[in-house]
């Protein structure tokens, strides 16, 4: 019974590490091929910088800055109105 347990453990290690390496090797290969295909045939027209920025939509500097700008402008406007009244 104990012998069987140890055997099971060895089997599990062997199959487990085997699968991990097989899977990640396949993933490396597919990624390399995918990257080659994408960069060759589907290259993005945008400058990479912008592509990068658009990925994290929340941190897109363009969008955020325009919001910030409006915040400032509104505030200044409000401030002036207060002064006048």
């Amino acid at each position, binding site marked *: 019974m104990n012998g069987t347990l140890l055997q099971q*453990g060895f089997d*599990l290690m062997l199959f487990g590490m085997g699968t991990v390496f097989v899977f990640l*090797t396949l993933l*490396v290969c597919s990624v390399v091929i995918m*990257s080659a295909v994408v960069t060759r045939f*589907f290259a*993005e027209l945008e400058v990479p910088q912008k592509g990068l920025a658009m990925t994290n939509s929340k941190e897109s500097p363009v969008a955020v800055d325009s919001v910030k700008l409006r915040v400032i402008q509104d505030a200044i406007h409000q401030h002036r109105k207060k002064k006048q009244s």
Partner: protein
Amino acid sequence: MNGFQYLWFDSGLYQIQIGQVAMLLVCLLLLFLAIKRGFEPLLLVPIGFGGLLANIPGAGLAISAVDAALTSGDIALVSQLAGIADLSAWTNTDEIYKALNSASAEANIQAKLIATGAGYSSGMLYDFYTVTIASGAAPLIIFMGVGAMTDFGPLLANPRTLFLGAAAQFGIFATLLGAVGLTTLGIMEFSIADAAAIGIIGGADGPTAIYVASKLAPDLLGAIAVAAYSYMALVPMIQPPIMRALTTEAERKIVMTQLRVVGKREKITFPLLMLILVALVLPSAAPLLGMFCFGNLMRECGVVARLSDTAQNGLINITTIFLGLSVGSKLAADKFLDPKTLGILLLGIVAFAIGTAAGILMAKMMNLVSRHKINPLIGSAGVSAVPMAARVSNKIGLEANPQNFLLMHAMGPNVAGVIGSAVAAGVMISIVSNM
């Protein structure tokens, strides 16, 4: 007076057991580590507090209705429940409980009906556990959120680092073997399922560990989760000595070429590619990696920003609160105070050490065959523990060469380690549940 007597018998002071006192102290220690020492507080604060709640004497927050009926029911009720498990009414209630646990699904439903019929109900934490962890949902939802927070850019820029993430999973399987070995030597009593669940601590990934433990060894879940998160917090102490011992000063100084910029389309394609590969090669890893890829696709596709945002914030926070409390429910004294817990804590740290070493050695091996040299310090990041392990690589690298910033390079193996341990989890669940 009858009423005050009743309140005294009902009070914690009257009912408390030494094990519960010990566990209350352990949980306070966990909270101290989380709050003052910054040990993965997002998980360990809810887990520690859940542990406190689970050990309140007499409150029964972490037990099922049947358990409550066995604990505080009268002899007629207990004998009725014993009858379902074909036991005599005079059997110890613990044994009745165990017998019912291994009885048929029908017997369990009948027992539950009897217990609820007699006015007993399951505790709050037990319900939380059923909904979040027993269903498998919470770890998967957190994994989706982690996917939505993960940037695969560094990995795509240097896909070779996936091998480092693969190698570091050796910690999982070596630990599994250790657990099996301890049993063979008669020191511990782990089944193969227990051993697999303990091994996954070496994956250094919280939701994966909880998911696997809930499937293979629910009774050990508390200890496994505590070990996984504690050691993840201890990575800045566990890894550096191993990293220094296994690398030469020259190796630590290796400067890696700057990573190329990865385009949006590659980032969108990657999660889909990985999912297809999962579908073709390893369906048993589909729940974990599927949700991970889904989260990442939401992040990268750019057209569902509000869903991605919710997955990264509101949803993952809500899930974390209840997942943490539920894990805490497994810190009840009768489950946690067991020699097995000591074994788990010991094996867990071994798992981290072996994983770290395997990652570094893999990097050195790759340097033997490859022209583009890899700084072996980033190999240790393959154990996951995102982003702590990558920061450790960076820090040790800066010690050797103050101009050598390894952080982005280490993020590749770091996220590869997450994939690697999810794959290992899939294999183990699939094989063990068919053994």
